[in-house]
Protein backbone atom coordinates (compact mmCIF):
# COMPACT_ATOMS: atom_id res chain seq x y z
CA UNK A 1 0.00 0.00 0.00
CA UNK A 2 1.58 3.29 -1.04
CA UNK A 3 1.33 6.07 1.51
CA UNK A 4 1.60 9.81 1.20
CA UNK A 5 2.71 11.44 4.43
CA UNK A 6 1.72 15.09 4.79
CA UNK A 7 3.58 17.25 7.30
CA UNK A 8 2.52 20.86 7.88
CA UNK A 9 4.48 22.09 10.92
CA UNK A 10 8.01 23.40 10.98
CA UNK A 11 10.57 20.82 12.15
CA UNK A 12 12.06 23.52 14.36
CA UNK A 13 8.76 24.02 16.16
CA UNK A 14 7.24 20.54 16.39
CA UNK A 15 8.30 16.92 16.34
CA UNK A 16 5.75 15.95 13.68
CA UNK A 17 8.39 15.50 10.99
CA UNK A 18 10.51 13.38 13.36
CA UNK A 19 7.54 11.18 14.20
CA UNK A 20 6.69 10.86 10.52
CA UNK A 21 10.20 9.86 9.50
CA UNK A 22 10.39 7.36 12.34
CA UNK A 23 7.12 5.70 11.38
CA UNK A 24 7.02 6.05 7.60
CA UNK A 25 7.58 2.86 5.65
CA UNK A 26 10.38 2.73 3.13
CA UNK A 27 9.04 3.59 -0.31
CA UNK A 28 6.38 5.98 0.92
CA UNK A 29 6.23 9.66 -0.05
CA UNK A 30 6.44 12.84 1.98
CA UNK A 31 4.77 16.13 1.11
CA UNK A 32 5.81 19.25 3.03
CA UNK A 33 3.16 21.97 3.22
CA UNK A 34 2.52 25.17 5.20
CA UNK A 35 5.29 25.76 7.79
CA UNK A 36 6.86 22.37 7.08
CA UNK A 37 8.29 23.69 3.81
CA UNK A 38 11.26 24.98 5.82
CA UNK A 39 12.31 21.33 6.19
CA UNK A 40 13.14 21.35 2.48
CA UNK A 41 15.85 23.98 2.89
CA UNK A 42 19.51 23.10 2.66
CA UNK A 43 22.01 23.96 5.36
CA UNK A 44 19.67 23.64 8.32
CA UNK A 45 20.04 21.41 11.38
CA UNK A 46 17.43 19.05 9.89
CA UNK A 47 18.79 18.91 6.35
CA UNK A 48 20.86 15.79 7.03
CA UNK A 49 17.86 14.02 8.50
CA UNK A 50 15.72 14.88 5.49
CA UNK A 51 18.49 13.94 3.06
CA UNK A 52 18.82 10.56 4.78
CA UNK A 53 15.06 10.05 4.54
CA UNK A 54 15.22 10.81 0.85
CA UNK A 55 17.21 7.62 0.33
CA UNK A 56 14.01 5.64 0.64
CA UNK A 57 11.23 8.21 0.37
CA UNK A 58 10.28 10.60 -2.37
CA UNK A 59 9.96 14.12 -0.95
CA UNK A 60 7.76 16.87 -2.35
CA UNK A 61 7.18 20.44 -1.23
CA UNK A 62 4.21 22.73 -1.94
CA UNK A 63 5.43 25.63 -4.07
CA UNK A 64 2.71 28.05 -2.98
CA UNK A 65 3.85 27.75 0.65
CA UNK A 66 7.53 28.24 -0.29
CA UNK A 67 6.64 31.36 -2.25
CA UNK A 68 4.49 32.76 0.54
CA UNK A 69 7.42 32.42 2.91
CA UNK A 70 10.00 33.86 0.55
CA UNK A 71 11.91 30.60 0.29
CA UNK A 72 13.40 30.60 -3.19
CA UNK A 73 13.88 27.28 -4.95
CA UNK A 74 17.65 27.89 -4.93
CA UNK A 75 17.49 27.39 -1.15
CA UNK A 76 16.07 23.88 -1.45
CA UNK A 77 17.91 20.61 -1.10
CA UNK A 78 18.59 18.64 -4.27
CA UNK A 79 16.05 16.04 -5.24
CA UNK A 80 12.96 17.61 -3.71
CA UNK A 81 10.15 18.15 -6.21
CA UNK A 82 8.08 21.32 -6.00
CA UNK A 83 4.36 20.78 -6.64
CA UNK A 84 1.33 23.05 -6.85
CA UNK A 85 -2.14 22.37 -5.39
CA UNK A 86 -3.05 20.36 -8.48
CA UNK A 87 0.06 18.29 -7.86
CA UNK A 88 -0.97 17.91 -4.21
CA UNK A 89 -4.30 16.50 -5.36
CA UNK A 90 -2.54 14.14 -7.77
CA UNK A 91 -0.26 12.88 -5.00
CA UNK A 92 -3.22 12.10 -2.77
CA UNK A 93 -5.07 10.38 -5.61
CA UNK A 94 -2.04 8.36 -6.75
CA UNK A 95 -1.14 7.01 -3.32
CA UNK A 96 -3.38 4.34 -1.81
CA UNK A 97 -3.62 6.24 1.44
CA UNK A 98 -2.45 9.44 3.10
CA UNK A 99 -1.61 10.45 6.66
CA UNK A 100 -1.41 13.97 8.06
CA UNK A 101 1.12 14.47 10.84
CA UNK A 102 -0.25 17.39 12.87
Amino acid sequence: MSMLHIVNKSPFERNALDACLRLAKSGSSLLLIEDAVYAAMKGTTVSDKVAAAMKDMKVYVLGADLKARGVGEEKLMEGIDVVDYAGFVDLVAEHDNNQSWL
Partner: protein
Amino acid sequence: MKFTILVNEGPYQHQASDTAYQFTKAALEKGHEIFRVFFYNDGVNNATRLSVPPQDDRNITQNWTELAEKHGLDLVVCIAAAQRRGILDEDEMKRQGKDAHNLAPGFRISGLGQLIEGGIQSDRLVVFGD
Protein backbone atom coordinates in the same frame (compact mmCIF):
# COMPACT_ATOMS: atom_id res chain seq x y z
CA MET B 1 -11.96 9.99 -7.17
CA LYS B 2 -14.26 10.79 -4.28
CA PHE B 3 -12.71 12.91 -1.50
CA THR B 4 -13.74 13.71 2.03
CA ILE B 5 -11.95 16.70 3.51
CA LEU B 6 -11.59 17.19 7.27
CA VAL B 7 -10.88 20.71 8.56
CA ASN B 8 -9.81 20.82 12.20
CA GLU B 9 -8.92 24.46 12.67
CA GLY B 10 -10.73 27.78 12.59
CA PRO B 11 -10.30 30.57 10.07
CA TYR B 12 -7.18 32.78 10.22
CA GLN B 13 -5.70 31.26 13.39
CA HIS B 14 -4.17 28.41 11.39
CA GLN B 15 -3.56 27.91 7.69
CA ALA B 16 -5.49 24.63 7.74
CA SER B 17 -8.75 26.03 6.39
CA ASP B 18 -6.97 27.95 3.62
CA THR B 19 -4.97 24.89 2.56
CA ALA B 20 -8.09 22.73 2.67
CA TYR B 21 -9.93 25.28 0.52
CA GLN B 22 -7.13 25.45 -2.08
CA PHE B 23 -6.92 21.65 -2.14
CA THR B 24 -10.68 21.30 -2.53
CA LYS B 25 -10.74 23.87 -5.33
CA ALA B 26 -7.89 22.11 -7.15
CA ALA B 27 -9.56 18.72 -6.76
CA LEU B 28 -12.79 20.07 -8.26
CA GLU B 29 -10.87 21.69 -11.14
CA LYS B 30 -9.39 18.28 -11.89
CA GLY B 31 -12.85 16.78 -12.09
CA HIS B 32 -12.77 14.91 -8.80
CA GLU B 33 -15.84 14.63 -6.59
CA ILE B 34 -15.91 16.11 -3.11
CA PHE B 35 -18.16 13.83 -1.09
CA ARG B 36 -18.10 16.09 1.96
CA VAL B 37 -16.10 18.74 3.75
CA PHE B 38 -16.37 18.13 7.49
CA PHE B 39 -15.50 20.79 10.05
CA TYR B 40 -14.40 19.59 13.50
CA ASN B 41 -12.57 20.98 16.56
CA ASP B 42 -12.14 24.72 15.99
CA GLY B 43 -12.88 24.08 12.33
CA VAL B 44 -16.55 24.74 13.14
CA ASN B 45 -15.64 28.41 13.48
CA ASN B 46 -15.26 28.59 9.70
CA ALA B 47 -19.06 28.46 9.63
CA THR B 48 -19.90 31.70 11.43
CA ARG B 49 -21.94 34.18 9.47
CA LEU B 50 -20.78 37.03 11.67
CA SER B 51 -17.15 37.50 10.81
CA VAL B 52 -16.03 40.80 9.28
CA PRO B 53 -12.46 40.23 8.15
CA PRO B 54 -10.42 43.11 6.72
CA GLN B 55 -11.43 44.00 3.15
CA ASP B 56 -7.93 43.58 1.77
CA ASP B 57 -7.65 39.93 2.76
CA ARG B 58 -9.58 36.79 1.90
CA ASN B 59 -12.92 36.10 3.51
CA ILE B 60 -12.53 32.46 4.49
CA THR B 61 -16.16 31.78 5.37
CA GLN B 62 -17.29 33.40 2.17
CA ASN B 63 -14.75 31.36 0.18
CA TRP B 64 -16.33 28.19 1.48
CA THR B 65 -19.89 29.45 0.98
CA GLU B 66 -19.17 30.43 -2.63
CA LEU B 67 -17.31 27.22 -3.44
CA ALA B 68 -20.17 25.21 -1.95
CA GLU B 69 -22.74 27.12 -3.97
CA LYS B 70 -20.80 26.83 -7.23
CA HIS B 71 -20.21 23.08 -6.91
CA GLY B 72 -23.06 21.89 -4.70
CA LEU B 73 -20.64 20.93 -1.93
CA ASP B 74 -21.79 19.35 1.32
CA LEU B 75 -20.18 21.42 4.09
CA VAL B 76 -20.91 19.78 7.43
CA VAL B 77 -20.22 21.26 10.86
CA CYS B 78 -20.02 18.82 13.77
CA ILE B 79 -22.88 19.48 16.17
CA ALA B 80 -20.96 18.62 19.36
CA ALA B 81 -17.98 20.81 18.44
CA ALA B 82 -20.34 23.57 17.29
CA GLN B 83 -22.30 23.54 20.54
CA ARG B 84 -19.07 23.90 22.49
CA ARG B 85 -17.97 26.86 20.41
CA GLY B 86 -21.28 28.67 19.86
CA ILE B 87 -22.04 27.95 16.22
CA LEU B 88 -25.79 27.50 15.89
CA ASP B 89 -28.36 27.18 13.14
CA GLU B 90 -31.97 28.20 13.67
CA ASP B 91 -33.01 24.77 14.93
CA GLU B 92 -30.19 24.65 17.44
CA MET B 93 -31.00 28.19 18.60
CA LYS B 94 -34.57 27.12 19.39
CA ARG B 95 -33.55 23.79 20.86
CA GLN B 96 -30.92 25.33 23.12
CA GLY B 97 -32.97 28.41 24.06
CA LYS B 98 -30.46 30.88 22.65
CA ASP B 99 -31.31 34.33 21.32
CA ALA B 100 -29.46 34.10 18.02
CA HIS B 101 -28.14 31.79 15.37
CA ASN B 102 -25.06 32.36 13.24
CA LEU B 103 -24.55 29.56 10.75
CA ALA B 104 -23.27 30.84 7.41
CA PRO B 105 -25.00 29.88 4.13
CA GLY B 106 -23.86 26.68 2.53
CA PHE B 107 -23.04 24.95 5.82
CA ARG B 108 -25.21 22.49 7.73
CA ILE B 109 -24.88 21.15 11.26
CA SER B 110 -24.86 17.39 11.76
CA GLY B 111 -23.29 14.55 13.71
CA LEU B 112 -19.83 13.01 13.73
CA GLY B 113 -21.34 10.06 11.90
CA GLN B 114 -21.15 12.21 8.77
CA LEU B 115 -17.36 12.22 9.06
CA ILE B 116 -17.18 8.45 9.50
CA GLU B 117 -19.57 7.99 6.59
CA GLY B 118 -17.26 10.22 4.55
CA GLY B 119 -14.34 7.97 5.39
CA ILE B 120 -16.32 4.88 4.43
CA GLN B 121 -17.84 6.21 1.20
CA SER B 122 -14.84 8.15 -0.14
CA ASP B 123 -11.72 6.95 -1.90
CA ARG B 124 -9.56 9.39 0.00
CA LEU B 125 -9.95 11.29 3.28
CA VAL B 126 -7.54 14.19 3.78
CA VAL B 127 -7.03 15.86 7.16
CA PHE B 128 -6.10 19.53 7.53
CA GLY B 129 -5.24 20.62 11.06
CA ASP B 130 -2.61 21.96 13.39
